């Protein structure tokens, strides 16, 4: 029996307000309360609530034949607690079925893994604790922000006691090999790796409603057929995507919910595949080989690298300035400073400063509240300038 593994990423950043130079030293409120509340509630209404409900329905219908995996960033959880409290309950109801696994990630949805090992471990620890508190399960598998992975990162993750990790099935890493097997880390034999099948994942997340695509429209039958057409020896199909795909990126009118509702039945009835959580896949299959990733990769853009966050001097400057505060932050107890430190690390802030506008410009624009990467940089640095002043003052 082969497995099919659906994994959904849930994340919302705390977006910054327009922070003027004149606000520095006067006003330390950096976040756009109105916009954050509005977006959290809108996405909850369009995506999280209806999709959670659908998943619950599918679990009730198919029982143990239908399982899924989530990771929810600390930023998203905080926003839900603040703006949409009953959404937490909705996720808890899914957790209670026992058919849903929750993964660990960095609390702030940050890029600490490529910047600072200590901070990285602290954040992962905090996130796991929060997941355990809310959903009653201690994460055993780790997924990094934007599926960023390298040999180096995998080593830290193994040391923290996780038995597996997710990343992208990037062509430049896999070469001729297939993402449809379990792999292991090159630096630690005990850390299993699950790779995203980006073709089948993006068929849903990016291409579902694209009428210019030769395969449009995709139906549950057609998608099931594609899965069954994979090479005979494939062990597991890993479909990873943003949870916001359902109802937000692909709005309800595209038929995305109906598609997903019909999908499990179609797949199960074809006989070869069984739904599994990430941990179940790891239990079932032994790694076929190790993967070597000397430089960080991610699931973003054509390049599948980290240049969307660390590709230009604006991002580098912002990064270096932010993380230069790390040691000082450790000495501070002020909860407001700690909170802003978390929120400012979120990868989205750096994504907005990206200047790669060509191959992936459309996607970048879709997610970007700023008119230009320069505006994003200026606003972030104005906020950071004030934050640095507060930190300096607090350690004095």
């Amino acid at each position, binding site marked *: 029996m082969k497995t099919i593994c659906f994994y959904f990423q849930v994340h919302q950043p705390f977006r910054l307000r327009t922070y003027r130079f004149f606000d*520095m030293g006067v006003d330390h409120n950096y976040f756009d309360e109105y916009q954050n509340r509005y977006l959290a509630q809108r996405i909850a209404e369009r995506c999280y609530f209806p999709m959670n409900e659908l998943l619950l329905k599918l679990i009730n219908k198919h029982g143990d034949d239908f399982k899924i995996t989530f990771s929810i960033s600390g930023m998203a959880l905080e926003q839900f607690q603040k703006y949409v409290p009953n959404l937490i309950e909705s996720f808890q109801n899914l957790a209670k079925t026992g058919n849903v696994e929750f993964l660990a990630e960095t609390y702030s949805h940050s890029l600490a893994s490529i910047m600072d090992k200590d901070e990285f471990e602290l954040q992962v620890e905090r996130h796991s604790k929060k997941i355990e508190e809310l959903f009653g399960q201690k994460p055993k598998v780790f997924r990094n922000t934007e599926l960023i992975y390298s040999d180096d990162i995998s080593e830290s993750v193994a040391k923290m006691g996780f038995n597996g990790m997710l990343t992208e099935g990037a062509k430049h890493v896999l070469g001729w090999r297939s993402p449809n097997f379990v792999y292991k880390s090159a630096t630690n034999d005990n850390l299993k790796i699950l790779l995203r099948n980006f073709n089948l994942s993006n068929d849903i997340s990016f291409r579902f409603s694209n009428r210019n695509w030769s395969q449009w429209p995709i139906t549950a039958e057609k998608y099931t057929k594609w899965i069954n057409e994979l090479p005979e020896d494939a062990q597991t199909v890993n479909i990873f995507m943003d949870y916001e795909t359902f109802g937000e990126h692909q709005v309800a009118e595209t038929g995305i919910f109906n598609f997903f509702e019909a999908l499990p039945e179609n797949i199960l009835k074809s006989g070869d595949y069984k739904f599994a959580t990430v941990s179940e896949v790891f239990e079932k299959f032994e790694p076929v080989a190790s993967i070597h990733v000397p430089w960080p990769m991610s699931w973003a853009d054509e390049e599948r690298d980290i240049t969307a966050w660390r590709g230009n001097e604006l991002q580098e400057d912002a990064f270096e300035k932010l993380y230069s505060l790390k040691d000082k932050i450790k000495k501070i107890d002020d909860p407001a400073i700690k909170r802003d430190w978390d929120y400012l690390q979120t990868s989205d802030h750096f994504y907005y400063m990206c200047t790669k506008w060509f191959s992936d410009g459309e996607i970048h624009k879709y997610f970007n509240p700023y008119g230009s990467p320069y505006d994003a940089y200026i606003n972030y640095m104005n906020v950071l300038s004030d934050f*640095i002043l507060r930190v300096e003052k607090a350690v004095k």
Partner: protein
Amino acid sequence: MRVLMFGWEFPPHIAGGLGTACFGLTKGMKKQGMDVIFVVPKAYGDESEEAVKIVNASDVSIDMRYSNLKEYFDNVTYIEVNSRLIPYVGTDDYFNIENQEKYYTENHDTLISHRKYEFSGKYGENTMLEVERYAMVAAQIAKDFEFDIIHAHDWLTYNAGIAAKKVSGKPLVVHMHATEFDRSGLDINTVVFDIERKGMMAADRVVTVSNYTRNIVVEKHGIPAEKVFTVHNAVEPNESQAVKEYKKNIDDKIVTFLGRVTFQKGPEYFVEAAHMILQRDPNVRFVLAGDGDMMPKVIRRVAQLRMGDRFNFTGFLRGAEVDKMFALSDVYVMPSVSEPFGISPLEAMRSNVPVVISKQSGVSEVLQHALKVDFWDVEAMADAIYGLLHYPALSDMFVEHGKIEVDNLLWENAAYKLKLIYNELI
């Protein structure tokens, strides 16, 4: 004495320093007992008429049968203009060819005997067309009004000045607030240059805002030196006292650049100087207030030098925000590559902020209590800023004497000089 003046903008509807200078000058002229009819391409109705009578060119009905105007209809030429070279425009706009053709046919419609033109009075894609039409309107105005002398401000109005002179036979004075060389360096727009030169050659006298500018028009435009006179700009006394109460909430010392972020203003030299100072004193904050086509380049350089946390951007500031910015500043820097005059350091000094200015500016000719450096000499600029920040004796003296100096730069003195020039012509 009655002066027919052609301008392009008038407060409160201004894009740059030209309108402010015209306003100050005409107020000074009133004090010197002169009457001014001030023509603008587009009046909004809320312009101050305390010193002038405003004539809205968009309201003037042109008699198309009037033979003296004919040559203007025939000579109306439409040229594609790269408007980076037009003053006070941040983005690259191009003259729209489609529009040219539409207007061209309109102008030759002989069935119409009277017509009006609606002007935008902006600096944009239709500027060249508006410059030509403005000349047609000017001829009509010259026919309709009584006056003793014609005065035209900057190249945009020179064709209007020439037309008015032809129709009325009165003497023409043209006023150079900025030359094409200031705006564009050596890569000049030859069409604009030709209009500047033509206007100055046709004029009876040329007024420049500084000796710096006078040298440019004599050397580069080839205007006979004996008809070019310098009348330095002045500054209006500060009225907004409340701003001084604005509390500074940051301990850092603040060094400010305020102006358009364009080649002419030299923002990149400010960035390099900032970097040098931060090596020596990390407790300084630099602020670049303004917008313009060099923004991306400047921002990248700031990030490259890893000083984004010490070098902040405010975007374009207006009105009270400008006063607030001055109130927060410890040093003001004007690193202009080529500045015909440069009124902003005077505004800074008026707000008790000591200034560092480039020697390539007209204002450096009238100021004693300012540190003057070559725009390209980043080390000297850094030194000057550092000195003002760290040696209170120096900055205190500059603040105290600088204010007196600025308070003595009165528009009525400038107007008096202008009156002497007029008197020779009438």
